[in-house]
């Protein structure tokens, strides 16, 4: 247990360094940038005095290092700043939208795990069969497909074509909170779920298949077979247990990345999640929101990486924390 604590402490320190690094890069990136936020906010007609007043209000007339220092201090206290546009705290903006992104990612993750790992297992247990070739081919097709293309395609087929023949199963856009109406919540999310799930599942199918094929070539599997253990037991207890580790890594990173905002899918389906907030705040030059969201997204990925490392130890006794 002492190992895990020491490991966690070390990872935590590294994570904080990374976050500081990210925060610094994003902060200075935006100050080196040629865009003048105050001028943008003031509008084209504004006088120089108005622009200066706005600049003063936002604290942008202070020396750069002073701004940087106060930014770091606030961030260390968990305050990500306030939006330039509506003066709301970035955290409250995020809180408002987190539900959408979490719903999207959790539902999608369940689907892509089932489809991806299932298809991979199917292929690995019958290598070079028709089923294997079919699943591998389909996986490669979705692997090559841009997310927005699949999203548009699903909209066209499952929303518009069905709508034309009078079947309105899946709404084309929008979001209904789970607490308001669970059924409508799920219906609104079916197409976005399918979009992220099908594309992500492709990677999992490829990963599971190759990883299982590798493990099935190991000596201890031959030993298990020689001992007369049944095939399903070998597959699930011996092969899958060992083959699942790269899948777990990928899963952690994917979920961590997506929780920071499912940029493309949210934009295609008009879901008011964090990914949409990022794109809209970037087009409106809302600096604090951009920095806050990038920091938050990085934090999710880092936390996901730590969780993956810990899960690894339980999955694979050969792995030592160091």
């Amino acid at each position, binding site marked *: 247990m002492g190992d895990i604590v020491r490991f966690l402490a070390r990872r935590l320190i590294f994570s904080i360094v990374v976050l500081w690094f990210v925060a610094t890069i994003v902060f200075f990136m935006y100050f080196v940038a040629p865009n003048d936020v105050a001028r943008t906010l003031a509008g084209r007609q504004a006088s120089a005095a108005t622009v200066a007043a706005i600049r003063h209000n936002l604290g942008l007339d202070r020396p750069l290092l002073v701004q940087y220092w106060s930014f770091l201090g606030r961030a260390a206290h968990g305050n990500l700043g306030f939006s330039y546009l509506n003066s709301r705290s970035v955290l409250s903006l995020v809180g408002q939208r987190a539900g959408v992104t979490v719903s999207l990612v959790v539902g999608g993750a369940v689907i892509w795990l089932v489809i991806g790992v299932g298809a991979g297992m199917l292929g690995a247990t019958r290598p070079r069969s028709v089923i294997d070739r079919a699943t591998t081919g389909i996986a490669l097709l979705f692997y090559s497909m841009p997310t927005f293309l699949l999203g548009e395609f699903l909209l066209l087929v499952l929303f518009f074509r069905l709508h034309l023949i009078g079947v309105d199963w899946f709404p084309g856009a929008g979001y209904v909170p789970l607490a308001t109406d669970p059924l409508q919540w799920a219906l609104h999310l079916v197409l976005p779920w399918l979009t992220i799930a099908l594309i992500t599942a492709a990677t999992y199918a490829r990963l599971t298949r190759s990883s299982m094929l590798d493990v099935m070539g190991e000596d201890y599997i031959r030993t298990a077979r020689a001992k007369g253990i049944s095939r399903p037991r070998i597959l699930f207890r011996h092969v899958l247990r060992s083959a699942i580790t790269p899948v777990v890594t990928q899963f952690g990173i994917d979920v961590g990345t997506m929780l920071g905002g499912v*940029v493309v899918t949210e934009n295609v389906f008009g879901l008011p999640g964090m990914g949409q907030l990022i794109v809209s705040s970037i087009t409106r030059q809302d600096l604090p929101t951009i920095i806050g969201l990038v920091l938050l997204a990085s934090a999710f990925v880092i936390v996901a990486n730590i969780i993956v490392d810990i899960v690894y130890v339980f999955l694979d006794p050969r792995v030592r924390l160091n």
Partner: protein
Amino acid sequence: MASPEPDAVLGSFGADPAAATIVAIGGRGPWLLAWERLRRDPVAVGCFVVILLVVAAALGAPLVAHLLGHGPNTQFRDTGLSAEGIPVGPSKKFLFGTDDLGRDVFLRVLYGARISLLAGVSASGIAVFIGVFVGLAAGYIGGIVDTVLSRFMDVVLSLPYLVFAIALVSLVGPSLVISIVVIAMFSWASVGRVVRGQALSAREKEFVESAQALGAGNLRIMVVDVLPNVLGPAIVYATMLIPLSIVFEATLSFLGVGVLPPTATWGNMLAESIPYYRVAWWFVAFPGLALLVTTLAFNLLGDAVRDALDPRGPLARTRKRRWFRG
């Protein structure tokens, strides 16, 4: 060279020594073996043909424009749009129909290939170059250099790339060059990690020791002895990075932070076509199909190259970065 027939080899030991020709058995290096395997793989050859067609389309686009007598941005307000201002479908004049401004979709798809290929190939080229350089340095030099570079690669790999990329692009203003730089920035680290692992194991090999004994400098050993040993995985990664970069560029264009209109790119065209997908399927279908077929061909070829270079495929287990997610 082709492998000699068994009879021809045995022939030199045959009854008539005068008639027997001496057949040299050429040494077949790993590169030649891989090439032979690749050449016999019908999928690889097919993909290669498709890629050649895309390259031909990209290179020949201005020629086609010349033959057609109009450019990719020429607007046909009379013949290219219906009376209601809706794009017209495929016809003899417009092979793939027209878009919302009455422009020739066929010609725009051809021009889009230029951007996609340029972005895909140059971004992966830069990424592989940096990745090989950094990975080689980390793996071969080791010590503190390795620690610093490896940590740095970890940091780059743990950034939410799409969010970061959009944030970066929004700063400098979208353009093709910025897209390429951003794509390369977020993909070199995965190459670097693989190359580092390869260099780490190559460093312990006897040929490195013998080079050191001969008095070769570190730089020379890195370039002459270690580099060829990391080239295989680097090539595989390059082939697989190209489709990822193409998708990345298309995604940036689609989100409006890549190459800006009116330049024809597949991502731009798809973004413009959304409001019209109910009335003008050709406007969505052709750029979409072009994008899908191109990335699919590169991915299939990448798989084939990997299998050819290393039939056992340890690369199959490596963690891959995918940025088009989300």
